[in-house]
């Protein structure tokens, strides 16, 4: 449930025909418990105001949220799957960034 992704289409696939479709919006909702807004899905709407109204009906029918953000899907820039290595490997090797790297004797108490 994220944006339409023409870039994911196989090479030589038919280009999607130009259409008069309502644009796609990504929907983010803050739940009841003071958490951050979280991506919940997407929907089509002609403009931002309607996107929020529709998001209320589609994604908060059971009291799931107290606040809605909508972002037009085409405005989102995402990292590419092929960059996964260079992007995230550098942090993988730095295990000293985790507290469990250090042995603290039991006698010291909770730390």
């Amino acid at each position, binding site marked *: *449930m*994220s*944006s*339409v992704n023409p870039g*994911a289409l196989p090479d030589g696939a038919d280009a999607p025909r130009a259409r008069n479709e*309502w644009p796609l919006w990504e929907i983010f909702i803050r739940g009841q418990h003071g958490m951050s807004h979280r991506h919940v*899905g997407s*929907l089509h709407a002609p403009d931002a105001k309607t996107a929020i109204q529709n998001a209320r009906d*589609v994604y908060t029918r059971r009291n799931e949220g107290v606040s809605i953000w909508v972002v037009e899907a085409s405005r989102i820039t995402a990292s590419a*799957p092929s960059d996964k290595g260079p992007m995230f490997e550098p942090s993988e090797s730095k295990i000293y960034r985790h507290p469990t790297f250090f042995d603290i004797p039991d006698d010291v108490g909770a730390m």
Partner: protein
Amino acid sequence: MYAQMVKSEATQDDPEKLAAFEARIAADEKIEPKDWMPVGYRKTLIRQIGQHAHSEIVGQLPEGNWITRAPTLERKAILLAKVQDEAGHGLYLYCAAETLGVSRDELTEMLLDGRMKYSSIFNYPTLTWADMGAVGWLVDGAAIMNQVPLQRTSYGPYSRAMIRICKEESFHQRQGYDIMMKMANGTPAQKRMAQDALNRFWYPSLMMFGPSDKDSVHSAQSMAWKIKMNTNDELRQKFVDQTVPQAEYLGLTVPDENLKWNDEKGGYDFSEPDWSEFFEVIKGNGPCNTERLAARNKAWDDGAWVREGMLAHARKKAARAVAAE
């Protein structure tokens, strides 16, 4: 199920990429929209998720039929909420399908001109109020049977849509059973209506799982890719085993004289539905196929001026905002 007889697509992909992809699936990793995937995986998923979405949307019609005639205001509010949920479920699924590179309008057009299917079950009429009970109890019950394992499907957006849907679906089945309990414990006439609804919906519900696919190459491929989690027969057996005691509790009789507990297999033996009827319904010759598609086409055509008008308005406002800067 909501997606029946989905054919898998043969695939001719780079063997190295394919092997890496299959290793990810085997390791229970989720496949995300921008990841490399075999052409066949993409096409099969579009077909399956699309058919599932269409089923949710067309599935509003048999129940929508009773909203204005619900017996109490409370029942009416509940039914309205349930039908609204079906619309929501259709929308979650369309969004998941769209991440595979198909547009919403294309999906809709393929439903409207018959190139894509929806579940056979929605081509049966809902004749009495008891049918609202039977649909919730049996049809949603059968759907849940299929959807719960699909929460673990390999395609991320599909899995997330299924998780949302499953959270909401249990309300549907329980409200259906609640109607059945009321009717089964009501006047003799109400009890007859409940039994009649069970009689009419039993076999069509068993058909929802599709014909036996234990020897199907399509199913084998889809199961290897984890876009189908169980065989049709497994799910049907599970459904019967779960539903028969529920019917007994209601004091209703499952319309199958061969129904019998089999100690050895730890499940019920039961009669197969009439598969020739199933294939006729799939071909478009069920009791309500014409009516259902006509209703969807009318809604699409009647809504065209709203879709166009709202888009034109949004574009005009956007252009004015730019001009004012």
